[in-house]
């Protein structure tokens, strides 16, 4: 990832007025390394960074609130491979207009999971992180430490299939080959009782903070089914029944739409393995219908289309 090129591009876009704002990353305060940042002045371009700690999916800011700006100012945003996939899916669903965006694509070799890193290095001692092939070189106050990428990357990144953004106006780096491989599933080989025991245990922990929903670029219904009062799908009480309903709603609504970026699982404060559930639905969409979300902005949505010979093995 080319940080200098990113800053130059951003400075140019803002000073020429091609965009009104840029959504990027800045240095974080709290053991998270980087955090999202929205700037409007070219002088702030130097605030933006591009490091292996830039884990957030910035596409969420395009759909977070219904558009209130009648002038619809243009926005530039930085997207990694998975973020671009979410963006393409949002475009497919007409959540944003392509013409309102300048896409700065970042081919990505993986993002560091902060907790994994802070097991090895004290957070406050880190001065700089650089990459060297399959390792990260962490410069600290005491010297240098080399860590294998596979030990500190997010699980999602270790099995990434779309590291290079499939859509970009400017590419801030060289294309990256997918790592490939299957994500591990803790419920593999479990019986139905064991599955229910596993998932009901996880759903019981949910506090319905909706961080998963708010962090997800693809959750942008005007009235979320989890909030809806007419009809009232999910009551306000927090217990296994309502939590299960909430997670079912979310998993089903993301079948064939989820970009598998992992933002939901990262946002969850109580550690529910949301990606395991979402990835399973994504695999079902691929296996049954041959549909991969977020790859073609002109494709028809999975559940908004059909084939007359769709599989019906589930009908006995």
């Amino acid at each position: 990832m080319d940080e200098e090129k990113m800053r130059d591009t951003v400075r140019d876009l803002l000073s020429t007025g091609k965009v009104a704002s840029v959504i990027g990353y800045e240095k974080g305060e709290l053991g998270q390394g980087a955090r999202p940042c929205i700037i409007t002045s070219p002088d702030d371009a130097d605030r933006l960074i591009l490091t292996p700690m830039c884990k957030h999916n910035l596409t969420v800011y395009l759909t977070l609130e219904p558009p209130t700006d009648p002038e619809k100012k243009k926005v530039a945003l930085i997207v990694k491979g998975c973020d671009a996939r979410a963006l393409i899916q949002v475009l497919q669903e007409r959540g944003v207009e392509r013409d309102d965006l300048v896409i700065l694509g970042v081919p990505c070799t993986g993002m560091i999971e902060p907790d994994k890193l802070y097991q090895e290095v004290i957070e406050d001692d880190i001065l700089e992180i650089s990459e060297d092939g399959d390792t990260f070189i962490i410069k600290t106050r005491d010297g240098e430490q080399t860590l294998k990428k596979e030990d500190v990357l997010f699980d999602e990144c270790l099995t990434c299939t779309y590291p290079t953004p499939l859509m970009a106006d400017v590419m801030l780096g060289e294309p990256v080959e997918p790592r490939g491989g299957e994500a591990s599933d803790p419920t593999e080989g479990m019986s139905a009782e064991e599955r229910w025991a596993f998932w009901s245990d996880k759903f019981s922990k949910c506090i319905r903070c909706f961080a998963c929903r708010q962090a997800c670029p693809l959750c942008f219904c005007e009235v979320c089914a989890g909030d809806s009062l007419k009809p009232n799908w999910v009551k306000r009480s927090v217990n296994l029944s309502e939590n299960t309903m909430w997670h079912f709603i979310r998993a089903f609504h993301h079948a064939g739409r989820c970009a598998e970026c992992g933002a939901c699982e990262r946002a969850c404060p109580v550690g529910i393995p949301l990606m395991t559930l979402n990835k399973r639905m994504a695999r079902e969409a691929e296996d049954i219908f041959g549909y991969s979300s977020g790859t073609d902005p002109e494709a028809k949505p999975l559940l908004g289309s059909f084939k007359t010979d769709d599989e019906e093995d589930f009908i006995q």
Partner: protein
Amino acid sequence: MAEDDFEPKIVAFLCNWCSYAGADLTGTSRIQYPPSVRVVRVMCSGRINPLLVLHALQQGADGVLISGCHPGDCHYIQGNYFARRRMNLITRLLEYVGIDSGRVQMSWVSASEGPKFADVIKKVTEDVRKLGPNEQFVREV
């Protein structure tokens, strides 16, 4: 735990033009079928929001049946094709989380298939009876 004398409560969403008419024919033909089913008539199986299926289970239904016109014969041309995709995915979601997808079934019953409707209900009732009462994520109130 399955109890053989437990009478399952099945919520059946039947499309107005085919399945509901077929069920009606079953009745007028005096063909017997288990009293487990509670029918909800909808205009088309494509109207079924998958959340309705989950809602039925959450409210205590032991099983849910969605029945529509045969593919290619939908009164509204395409509705059952959409329904088919949705039901495929919802049954897989339930299965993955450990809720036996035998509880949620789909069938194609046309307006002239009186006996078939009875067979479908018999089958669904037996399948759900074996699975036992639904206790997994039933609502508290």
